[in-house]
């Protein structure tokens, strides 16, 4: 049974998600009414033909529908990963790219664009890049024995991230300025403009797997916020737990970045917002973060594709909205952190 105090916060998160879905489905460049959506969905259930124009049906099923689902998955994934990493590192300034997942994915993607590969291959490159980067960081972190393994891990993440950033710079520098460079720039700014049905499978699998692992570990994660010795004294295998959290969070982050490009801030801001709603207990925090992250990115992506004829890059919107929001959050709810 959920404690009373967490119930309103959870309900708020669910309300945000429902409103996010509704807004995302109803708002867009192509006019789609509630009636159209119901008609198309009903026709799929009833196995008949919907009485709407072909273009409207294509928008609902092939364009906006997949994009809305992708936005939810990416937002939820980044928020869950951010929450897990903030707990793991006992640091509120940590975001999912702390161990180099985003920089690795970025290098993979720009290399894919540089070699003029297809979209799927670019995404695979990005995904592998993220995994390789975090693995490298983890191996460096484990090789260096100190009393504070978490700090070494963060430092390894910072330096590997910087190195990979230089790699991205080098590839952009060598890229053809008329074709590849704009493609790389757009990719690095983050966007779901090209999300389609075939993107959902490679996104859904890793996000689901990683999220299930993290959710399964939610009770044990509370122990990670204790000092290392105390956690060990409670009989929790901190080393194994750390590997599992890093692996699962990296999996979801890499899959998100591979699909949507670099989208900062969600993984940093949403966990704080969720914490202010339901408190620091991971058993509640993790699912609420996922719900809230999904809802948040649904709203952001709705803005990104609706305000102008051209797409506003997601990474820019999340930063512009995230920064003032984060400052407000810091000022108003800093007392609830701990």
């Amino acid at each position, binding site marked *: 049974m959920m404690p009373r105090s967490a119930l309103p916060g959870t309900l708020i998160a669910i309300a945000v998600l429902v409103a996010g879905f509704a807004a995302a489905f109803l708002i*867009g*460049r*192509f*006019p789609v009414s509630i009636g159209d959506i119901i008609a198309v969905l009903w026709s799929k259930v009833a196995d008949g033909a919907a009485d709407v*124009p*072909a*273009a*409207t*049906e*294509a*928008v609902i*099923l*092939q*364009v*906006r529908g997949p*994009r809305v689902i992708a936005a939810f998955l990416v937002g939820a994934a980044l928020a869950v990963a951010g929450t897990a990493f903030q707990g793991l590192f006992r640091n509120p300034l940590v975001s999912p790219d702390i161990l180099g997942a985003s920089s690795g994915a970025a290098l993979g993607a720009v290399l894919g664009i540089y070699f003029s590969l*297809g*979209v799927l291959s*670019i995404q695979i490159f990005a995904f592998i890049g993220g995994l390789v980067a975090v693995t490298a960081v983890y191996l460096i972190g484990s090789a260096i024995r100190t009393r504070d393994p978490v700090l070494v891990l963060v430092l390894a993440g910072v330096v590997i991230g910087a190195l990979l950033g230089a790699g991205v710079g080098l590839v952009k*520098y*060598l890229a*053809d*300025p*008329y*074709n590849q*460079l*704009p*493609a790389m720039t*757009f990719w690095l700014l983050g*966007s779901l*403009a*090209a999300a*389609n*049905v075939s993107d959902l499978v490679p996104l859904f699998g890793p996000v689901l797997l990683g999220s299930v692992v993290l959710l399964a570990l939610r009770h044990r994660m509370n122990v990670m916020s204790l000092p290392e010795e105390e956690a060990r004294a409670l009989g929790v295998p901190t080393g194994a737990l750390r590997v599992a959290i890093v692996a699962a969070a990296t999996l979801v982050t890499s899959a998100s970045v591979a699909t949507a490009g670099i989208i900062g801030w969600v993984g940093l801001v949403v966990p704080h917002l969720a914490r202010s709603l339901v408190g620091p207990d991971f058993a509640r925090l993790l699912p609420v973060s996922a719900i809230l992250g999904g809802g948040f990115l649904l709203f952001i992506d709705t803005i990104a*594709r609706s305000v*102008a*004829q*051209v*797409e506003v*890059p997601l990474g820019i919107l999340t930063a512009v909205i995230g920064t003032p929001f984060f400052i407000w959050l810091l000022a108003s709810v800093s007392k609830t952190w701990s």
Partner: protein
Amino acid sequence: MLSRRSVLAGLLSTLPRVAQAQSVTDATGRVLAIPANVTRVFPAGPPAAIMLYTLAPDLLIGWPRANRLEEREYLLPDIGSRPEIGRITGRGNTANLEMLLALKPDLILDIGSTSRTYVTLAERVQEQTGIPYALLDGRFEATAASYRKLGELTRHEMQGKEFASYTTRTLDTIMQRIANVAPDKRPRVYFARGPRGLETGLGGSINVETIELLARNVAGERKGGLATVSIEQVLVWNPDVIITIDRDFASNVKGDPAWKGGTAVQEGRVHLAPKLPFGWIDFPPSVNRLIGLWWLAKILYPERFPEDIRAIARDFYARFYHVTPTDAQMDAVLEGRG
């Protein structure tokens, strides 16, 4: 080994050059002292390399980017295979000034934007190297003027005038035939770049100059450069014709359910622009767009342009690229290979 005599001979050979140096004004009004005998020209970027190759191939020291094998097939063999020398314009220089000096060019040629940024860049490089740096206007409508200027700069006045008049003739012929098509009756075109076709050129961008000359660019309402748009937005625009430079997109779009609602896809009006040895539409934006204009005119107004594009293209390749492609080669070009 340098003997005293060869040094003396070298000195003497430079003397008359300086003495006969001529002043030529470039497109920005800068007065340049051009040596009497220009034999080596350094192209600052791809548009300059292409224009120079067409006018005076033997002056071209090398290419900003080495040509691929399939591109060299359509260029003079000894010139098409000249080495990669990088670029010294635009976003970041890949060539360094010492290497540039080692190549001993008589002239540095840049064709593109004539904005203040590029004028100062030209002046700075000229001051540092002592080599005259000419800047010509790269806009499509300036092609004839730029050919005349380039003829003056390289002492190939006759050839420059000939190309300028070919350019004017081509433009006049094409524009006259569609002169009585009212602007609002012209086809609405979407220009698709990138593997998913979601990068496009906004109004006035260099990427869509030929398209905007003949038709209405659906993304032209907003001015700017390249931007990302969503499929929804393209479906709202519902263009009559889609012009793309990406083979993946061209082959996938017909089977893509998300795009099938659009008129252009339904009516089979998705056209892949040829790109050998250089792109016909915008890749890179240079005189290669002259033949692209013919191709585009035939696609947009088939009844007004009954000519065989092969004959026109072969004539263009013979004049400008100095090669006469075989039927098989011409097929490959028109299929958009490369």
